[in-house]
């Protein structure tokens, strides 16, 4: 690694002025937040977002020429981005590139943003071609992580990350801010381990898998990148108990302990999180059943049926899960209704598929890692026939679920 300079403080502010338009704004924003976290996870750096005014690091996108930047870009290909060294703080992306996330097509915004932030923090180019700080873009890597040379470089500038964050300096806190980090993200889970905290068929038919502090999307062609949960849903903790999206209300509910969080897309609803006081804490799983448009909450061997838009009488709940969902395990890890109209339950490293009569189908449980996460089991060969064609052969990005008008009613399950 080469060192070009350093900031004289470790708690930096940043501002996203604008980001490339080829990505949805929430995807681009999540990519940039994750880029910051690569560095803050290995060095005692924190990054605080400001929405207006001056910031130490300012990210923006511009075309071939910009009145605010002396370095021009050159259209698609070649130069992708550039950044200033400390303590200047500009990070610029070439607007004409095909910026992408979660695909080998185009240029991955998260990886390039992390590279340019490396410059903004004081790192020059590395001569290791596999390092993030190598000058040439090495392409999309689904399980990207910093190279030891990147880690050594940033730690040479700012030291190693220690459990205590504190001491020193600065900063005016009067601006509206979003606090990023400073919680330890924890180890990145292995999607091939097969066990999950929660799964959800989310907005636009995307399938989300949650484990620890991370979330990723599951598609027919593979897995998306792992994001920290809080990078996508600001304010949401990791290690969730359950997650469920309702096409009826377009609300996403997340459950953890005795609290519930509600989001519309990636924006938290005002007043949340709230305390769960009418159903038990520490739920196991949740799913939306499109047939009756109700949300089902599972804990132990029981379930609650909840109408999001009406006052539900929970006095007869919990009811035995086996009374309605035949052949599923107690204490499921996760559950969801999926694009194929079937209900899926997950527990341990296995999953169960239920037919329209909510009975577990023959041949289940099957291996979650193999059939959902595209992982090759060391004990499984192609001739084993352990392939669930309804999962692996389906395009996941269309949502045929019904959508009703959003009603501004506070769910009765919450206080």
């Amino acid at each position, binding site marked *: 690694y080469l060192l070009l300079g350093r900031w004289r403080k470790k708690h930096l502010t940043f501002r996203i002025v604008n980001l490339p338009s080829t990505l949805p704004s929430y995807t681009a924003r999540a990519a940039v937040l994750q880029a910051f976290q690569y560095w803050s996870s290995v060095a005692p750096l924190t990054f605080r977002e400001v929405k207006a005014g001056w910031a130490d690091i300012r990210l923006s996108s511009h075309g071939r020429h910009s009145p605010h930047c002396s*370095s021009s870009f050159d259209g698609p290909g070649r130069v*992708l981005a*550039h950044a200033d060294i400390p303590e200047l703080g500009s990070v610029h992306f070439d607007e004409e590139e095909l910026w992408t996330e979660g695909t080998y097509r185009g240029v991955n915004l998260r990886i390039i943003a992390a590279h*340019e932030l490396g*410059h903004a923090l004081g790192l*020059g*180019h590395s*001569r290791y071609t596999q390092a993030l700080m190598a000058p040439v873009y090495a392409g999309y890597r689904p399980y990207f992580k910093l190279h030891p040379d990147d880690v050594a470089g940033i730690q040479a500038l700012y030291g190693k990350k220690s459990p205590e964050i504190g001491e020193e300096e600065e900063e005016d806190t009067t601006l509206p801010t979003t606090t990023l980090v400073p919680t330890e993200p924890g180890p990145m889970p292995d999607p091939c381990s097969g066990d999950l905290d929660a799964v959800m068929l989310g907005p636009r038919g995307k399938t989300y898998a949650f484990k620890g502090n991370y979330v990723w999307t599951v598609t027919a062609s593979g897995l998306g990148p792992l994001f920290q949960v809080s990078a996508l849903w600001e304010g949401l903790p990791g290690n969730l108990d359950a997650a469920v999206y309702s096409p009826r209300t377009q609300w996403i509910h997340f459950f953890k302990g005795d609290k519930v969080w509600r989001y519309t897309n990636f924006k938290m609803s005002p007043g949340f999180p709230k305390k769960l006081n009418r159903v038990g804490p520490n739920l196991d799983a949740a799913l939306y059943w499109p047939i009756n448009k109700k949300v089902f909450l599972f804990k132990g061997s029981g379930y609650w049926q909840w109408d999001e838009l009406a006052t539900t009488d929970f006095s007869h709940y919990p009811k035995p899960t086996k009374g309605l969902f035949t052949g599923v395990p107690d204490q499921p890890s996760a559950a969801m209704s999926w694009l194929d109209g079937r209900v899926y339950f997950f527990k341990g490293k296995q999953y169960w598929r239920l037919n329209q009569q909510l009975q577990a189908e023959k041949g289940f449980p099957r291996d979650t890692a193999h059939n959902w996460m595209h992982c090759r089991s060391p004990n499984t060969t192609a001739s084993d026939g352990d392939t669930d064609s309804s999962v692996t052969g389906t395009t996941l990005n269309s949502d045929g679920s019904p959508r009703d008008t959003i009603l501004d009613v506070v769910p009765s399950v919450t206080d």
Partner: protein
Amino acid sequence: RVVGPGEKEAAVDYLLQYGYLQRPLEGPDNFRPEDVTEALRAFQEASELPVSGRLDDATSARMRQPRCGLEDPFNEKTLK
């Protein structure tokens, strides 16, 4: 393979843009062949390519790859 003048010019531009070649403050505008050869060797070494000092296909291809706009710090001295 014979390298065309346009390709050679593009390579020199690249080496100049990314810090492998430095234009002298005084003297002729054209780089000496040995300066270009040394810059190419530095670029090839930094790119983990066979080090020949010649503009071969692999070197040209490497120069066409998408990259960061900042200069590289690599020259014979830093690589050593």
